[in-house]
């Protein structure tokens, strides 16, 4: 048991950036094709990252790099906890910690676009946080444990059977987490936007590269949560879960290319409404069937 944990954590730490980077590359390729263009090479994200590493080292103050480093570190820790099968809430809180580091890094630069980006990022966090917690609560109610190692081996089958609403809600907020249109408010990976580069305006060179890597880690971890909904402890379940993860990712790309960027009001209204309707009703049903029936 212990051995598998160590292996999966190490596998995560090594493979996640590779898979995450590839996914990002595929994302860019598919997006380009959807826009009628050829698009970059699939390895482009890696080129970008190495390029950033090679650039001259500049920063706007001495504190920023520390915060960004912490961001990356705790994102890795988050994923590590996740793949070690630890408590889901612990994982979520660590993720929050990591995200706060990113925001703090942006705030520390005291620069307009970074600050507004940080403010919007914060708003996005406020928007998706309830749904994330509800997701954890839902998984807990269905599987009776917060431990991820228990959640992936549920006793009564795939969690999604009981949590269709929560699953949809989670996919909804994934759009925010993946920084996809219509909710790429605080920074967008490609292209230019009204906030210049938002949150990342003041990060250059290596610092920016770290952020890219962190995003790859984060994306894999988020797909890991999608995985939880499908996994049922069997091999075919795992395969199905991976397929669902990929389909989810594709849908996110499609959404990215099919929507205008919305304003923050919509971001918070819609995600809270989703959390209240899908999340709440789903929970209500579970509570009802669990405690009343």
């Amino acid at each position, binding site marked *: 048991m212990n051995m598998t944990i160590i292996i999966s954590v190490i596998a995560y730490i090594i493979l996640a950036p590779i898979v995450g980077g590839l996914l990002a590359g595929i994302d860019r390729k598919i997006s380009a094709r959807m826009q009628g263009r050829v698009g970059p090479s699939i390895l482009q994200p890696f080129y970008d990252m190495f390029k950033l590493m090679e650039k*001259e*080292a*500049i*920063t*706007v*103050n*001495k*504190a920023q*790099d*520390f*915060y960004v*480093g912490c961001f990356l*570190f705790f994102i890795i*820790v988050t994923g590590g*906890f996740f793949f070690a099968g*630890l*408590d889901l*809430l*612990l994982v979520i*809180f*660590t993720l*929050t*910690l990591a995200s*706060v580091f990113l*925001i*703090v890094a*942006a*705030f*520390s*630069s*005291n*620069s*307009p*676009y970074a*600050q507004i980006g940080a*403010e919007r990022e*914060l*708003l996005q*966090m*406020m*928007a998706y*946080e*309830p*749904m994330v*917690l*509800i997701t954890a*609560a839902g998984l*807990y*109610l269905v599987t009776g444990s*917060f431990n991820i190692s228990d959640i992936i081996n549920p006793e009564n089958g795939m969690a999604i059977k009981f949590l269709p609403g929560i699953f949809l809600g989670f996919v909804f907020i994934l759009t925010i987490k993946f920084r996809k249109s219509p909710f790429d408010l605080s920074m967008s990976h490609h292209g230019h936007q009204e906030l*210049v580069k938002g949150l990342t*305006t*003041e990060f250059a060179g290596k610092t920016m590269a770290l952020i890219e890597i962190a995003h790859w880690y984060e994306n894999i971890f988020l797909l890991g949560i999608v995985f939880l909904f499908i996994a049922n402890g069997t091999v075919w379940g795992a395969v199905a879960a991976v397929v669902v993860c990929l389909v989810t990712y594709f849908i996110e790309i499609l959404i990215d290319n099919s929507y205008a960027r919305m304003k923050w009001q919509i971001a*918070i209204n819609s995600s809270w409404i989703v*959390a209240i309707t899908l*999340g*709440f009703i789903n*929970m*209500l049903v579970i*509570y009802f069937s669990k405690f009343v029936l």
Partner: protein
Amino acid sequence: MSTITFLILFPLLSAIALLVLRTDAARGVIVKVSATLIAVASIYLAYQYFGIGEEYFDFANETVNLGMTVIEVLLAIMIIYLGIKYKKYLASVLAAIQTPTMIWFEVKVGHHIHVTNNLYVDRLSIIMVLIIGIIGSIITVYALGYMKDFQHHHKDQPDRRPFFFFIMYLFLGAMCGLVLSNNIVWLYFFWEITTLCSFFLIGYTKTEEAINNSFRALIMNLLGGVGFVIAIVIMGSSLGTLELNQLIMMGMFGVPAVTYVAALLAFAGITKAAQMPFNSWLLGAMVAPTPTSALLHSSTMVKAGVFLIIKLAPLLGWQSLAGIMVMMVGGITFIMASFAAVSQSNAKKVLAYSTVANLGLIVACGGIGTYAAVWAGILLIIFHAITKSLLFLCVGTAEHNIGSRDIEDMDGLFTRMPKLATYMIVGISAMFLAPLGMLVSKWAAMKAFIDNGGVLLVMFIAFGSAATLFYWTKWLGKMVAIMANRENIQSGVNKDENFVLSTLTILTVIVCLIFPLISKTMIVPYLIKAFPYVDPKHMILALSSTNMTIMVIMLFVLIVLPILFFGRTNKKIVPIYLAGANLGDDLTFRGAMEKEVPVSLKNWYMEGYFGEKKMNVIGVIATVVIITGVFAILLGGVL
């Protein structure tokens, strides 16, 4: 036993001394010495009863009872007088109802009930005493420097510092009494004293606003007091006991009348803990000098309310109407106050709302009434007391050095006052970030809510914590912002203040580090006693020991990381991006009409979404409906 007496009476002596000896030097010595003694005594008390865990004392003494009654009457007369003088007749009316009822009860019923144990010590009260003794007294030390500055800033007002310190110390004594009394009448007595202390301190500056707010606080607390009195009357007349432990025991055996008593006491607790619909008094209390806010209105006095509710927790829970009332009121208060905090830029108001919200969380935990919830509640009390007082004091210092308590004016504090900013960063992080204290307890609370709280409470906590995240992080953002070219004014900070702030900061971190220990040696044993029907072996805590260990390790990492890496970069420092119009100093850009426009970066407040008024109205209506509903049902049961 003697330690207890010391803890209750010694502060009183200091108080009188402070009132009499009016020079700065004498005050300094008295405060520092008494603070040390009280702190030492509280630690000694903890040490004394550490192994024993719980002990009850007779301490029966008719003169004490008589003395209390006399004081009560005097106080009532004073309130009635003040109420009339300031045309706040409601206060007079409430006092005129409360005290005569109490005296009538004493004479008719109370007199005949034999109280075996007037005082007691258990692990919960030890925790409370430690908070009062250490945090409380250290705040009074801080107040020395602060009040000097304060007087400096308010030269127009007469120097009333002797009175101020008198009340502060009086309060410390009363607070100790409150958490150590087993006799509910005594408890009530101390309860009223703290109400009055708060009243005087809120009205300290004697401005119109201060007086209005102090009366609002008084009236609301007296309302709770009325509830308290009725509870005592019912308790005495139908249960025939005046002892808290008896009451709880009876409750567990299902004596029906206990429900009423519990509901009424919980109501009193709700008023004192400034839960909605009574939260407005705490907000108003922010006019008081900052040490007051730190001591009374965040770390201790308001905790009296939640202390009582936590005490009663075994009687609450879903099976009791009182429990449902308490958890709903707590839950609603948590979410609404958290939302309202988003729209505030006045640092003290943010802290006040956050206090209300956290008390709401504790109250809700008490309302759920399971051991896991209570575990979370007690942890919340501890962490909140330390961290909040730290934050309040930081704001006080900031205010005196930069001239504003508005968060938006704390621009570039990291450059101007690096130490203070660091304390604040620690304090703010401790309020909501992962391995630190408050989050641990919030996590436990969340688990308790999911397990026993029902869907609604889960929603409350999910949304409430999202808002919490928002308002703390944006404040944190202001703190970390590094603004080049600002003058460093850290050295202007008073030495005492600095000492207190650093102590509290260290304390915050230490408590976060040793909380598994606190849980193991203090809270769990208390829970085993308080929930005798739960098999200790099956007591699964919200946080498994693995999780606690991970938390502590994470915290270590978080302490080590900055020491190793913070600011260690040899990168080239370049100017910030200002759309190509940076004038070079990172603070101004070339604006329209060729003006040099200073950049100004402010946070979001989202008035439209989280306006204070709106949140209060919703919260008040919801809680009023719940409270009146519950009491209506209870009353219906009686009739």
